[in-house]
């Protein structure tokens, strides 16, 4: 703490800084010039890239509640080492989503209105409350990590005493929140393409967020376990891969069964703008990773898991973007493509997320049980067992 070292200038540091600066510039332009001048949103496409980005952020944040549930509610203690990275991912994910939502709102100065002006019939109302409450829960789950760093044990004790209801609340809120993003589109049966519209949207959104959330955790353990340290034993990682495979399989069964019963499979006979998007999403993001994950070798190989989890995440992104954008387009007359400023704001915010994760992981005890690469930078490491042993 005493000697704050300036981060070394690295390639990724430069990239992230550039993206953040561009994003801030774009955000300033958006607030001074308005949505019309800076985005490609229109009366035909009132929602665009940013809503898709919200879906992604929330979906990846599913890492948080799945792992917390597994470790603290189902007592799968072996996964303890990844609880904190998962909570951190979720916390950052939610904060970024709140940021995007505020930028996306036409009247950001009114963002607090849903707190006092209620319309419980609105899915948007439910979503707003889930975001607010779950972000609060996540900050309570995250707070001990900060408090620990500053050696404040009294508040930690206090938070621990309410941790069980807090965690149950967190799991419930994210379940509701993940699925309610799907519910948003229940009200547009006339506009959303039949390849994506189904009354089961909330359920499908929930199942796929488990696949993407767990994939995100696997990916994180792979990335973070690089420099000679292992976050999670390979066998446990392989187990997570199995869970992903199960979620993918359940998803495929429910999705195709539903499409069959709604007679939507006919839409796939011809290669069209929409069916091409559907094929990409399903084959790259669900079918191939599922088949790959059936193999014992892939589940136990770092490179195999890198490839498959990235595919799952790509398919997940495609699914959300297709629901939010492609499915509402009618090619070729009625399409939407984001403006440069929309993209810059999104990449800027993503860069903020990565930078925040890296910095927090460096300065706070996110990985308490690992051999520390630079011991002098982590004076708190000796404290962690005392707090962990609750």
């Amino acid at each position: 703490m005493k000697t704050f070292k300036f981060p070394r200038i690295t390639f990724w540091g430069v990239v992230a800084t550039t993206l953040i600066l561009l994003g801030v510039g774009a955000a300033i332009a958006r607030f001074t010039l308005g949505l019309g001048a800076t985005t490609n949103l229109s009366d035909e496409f009132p929602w665009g890239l940013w809503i898709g980005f919200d879906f992604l952020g929330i979906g990846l944040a599913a890492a948080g509640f799945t792992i917390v549930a597994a470790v603290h509610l189902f007592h799968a203690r072996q996964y303890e080492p990844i609880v904190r990275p998962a909570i951190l991912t979720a916390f950052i994910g939610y904060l970024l989503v709140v940021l995007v939502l505020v930028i996306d709102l036409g009247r950001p100065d009114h963002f607090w209105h849903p707190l006092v002006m209620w319309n419980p019939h609105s899915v948007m109302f439910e979503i707003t409350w889930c975001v607010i409450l779950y972000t609060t829960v996540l900050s309570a789950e995250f707070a001990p990590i900060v408090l620990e760093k500053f050696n404040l044990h009294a508040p930690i004790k206090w938070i621990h005493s309410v941790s069980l209801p807090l965690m149950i609340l967190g799991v419930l809120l994210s379940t509701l929140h993940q699925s309610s993003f799907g519910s948003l589109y229940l009200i547009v049966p006339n506009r959303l393409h039949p390849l994506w519209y189904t009354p089961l949207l909330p359920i499908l959104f929930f199942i796929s967020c488990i696949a993407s959330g767990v994939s995100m955790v696997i990916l994180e353990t792979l990335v973070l376990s690089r420099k000679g340290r292992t976050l999670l034993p390979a066998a446990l990682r392989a187990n997570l891969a199995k869970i992903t495979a199960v979620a993918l399989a359940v998803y495929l069964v429910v999705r195709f069964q539903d499409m069959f019963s709604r007679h939507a499979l006919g839409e796939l006979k011809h290669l069209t703008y929409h069916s091409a998007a559907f094929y990409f999403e399903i084959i790259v993001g669900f079918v191939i990773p599922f088949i790959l994950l059936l193999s014992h070798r892939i589940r136990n190989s770092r490179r195999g898991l890198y490839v498959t989890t990235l595919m799952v995440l790509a398919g997940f992104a495609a699914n959300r973007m297709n629901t939010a954008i492609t499915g509402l387009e009618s090619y070729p007359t009625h399409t939407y493509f984001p403006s440069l400023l929309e993209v810059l704001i999104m990449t800027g915010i993503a860069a903020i997320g990565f930078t925040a994760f890296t910095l927090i992981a460096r300065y706070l005890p996110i990985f308490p049980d690992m051999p520390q690469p630079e011991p002098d930078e982590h004076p708190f490491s000796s404290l962690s067992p005392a707090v962990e042993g609750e």
Partner: protein
Amino acid sequence: MGQKKALLIDITLCVGCNACQAACKVENKLPEGEEKALSLSAFTALSEHDGLFVRHMCQHCDIPTCVSACPVGALEKRADGPVLYDGDKCIGCRYCMQACPFHIPRYEWKSTRPGIKKCILCAPRLAKGLPTACAEACPTGATKFGDRNDLLIEATNRITADPGKYVAKIYGKTDVGGTSVLYLSPVPFEKLGFDTRLGQEPMPLLSMNALSKVPNVVGVGSVMLAGIWWITNRREDVAREEGSRKQDSNHENRG
């Protein structure tokens, strides 16, 4: 107040003179000039389909999708018919635009404090007991103002009096649960760009079905999760007990 007001638009009578739009612009102090589509400055517009003219405007649904979608209740259905918007509440999420089955609300994209704009069914005139400006201006009676119940009876009478002239349907009578703008047409409605597949159920039911499950998820979910925690916790305690017992006996064996 009291009685629900409505408009009956008889497409067979419309000559495409655009007097409704002109009157609306005067009434609502919107910029002048003929417009072919709905916009911030045109709350109603005509489209032409093979010599037939169709008026587009907010349908003032009985159970409006936009009202149910708005998270802050900035949109509201009045008892006498109009669906009105309150810009002081609006947060600008644009869910109403996404949700409206008729694609009505227009957004002030150019503004830095934007809101939505749409037909207000001349609510201030209704309050004074006057018909809407567009109905008053219509030279042929193609747009007629009145109590919704009376207009439904009149529409049925027109169809039965001259079945050759009309298709046997009043668009808006039951579509999406009924609207305060009713249409009569000489040709099937889908030929005029009407969406006839919206169904008779009010669209808000679609999301309310999902929202009504929320209390269940919370109730059943919390009990279930707490139960799982209890069971696995107990199992862990037992395992720990047995583990330490085993260790003890190991020690004894070794010792």
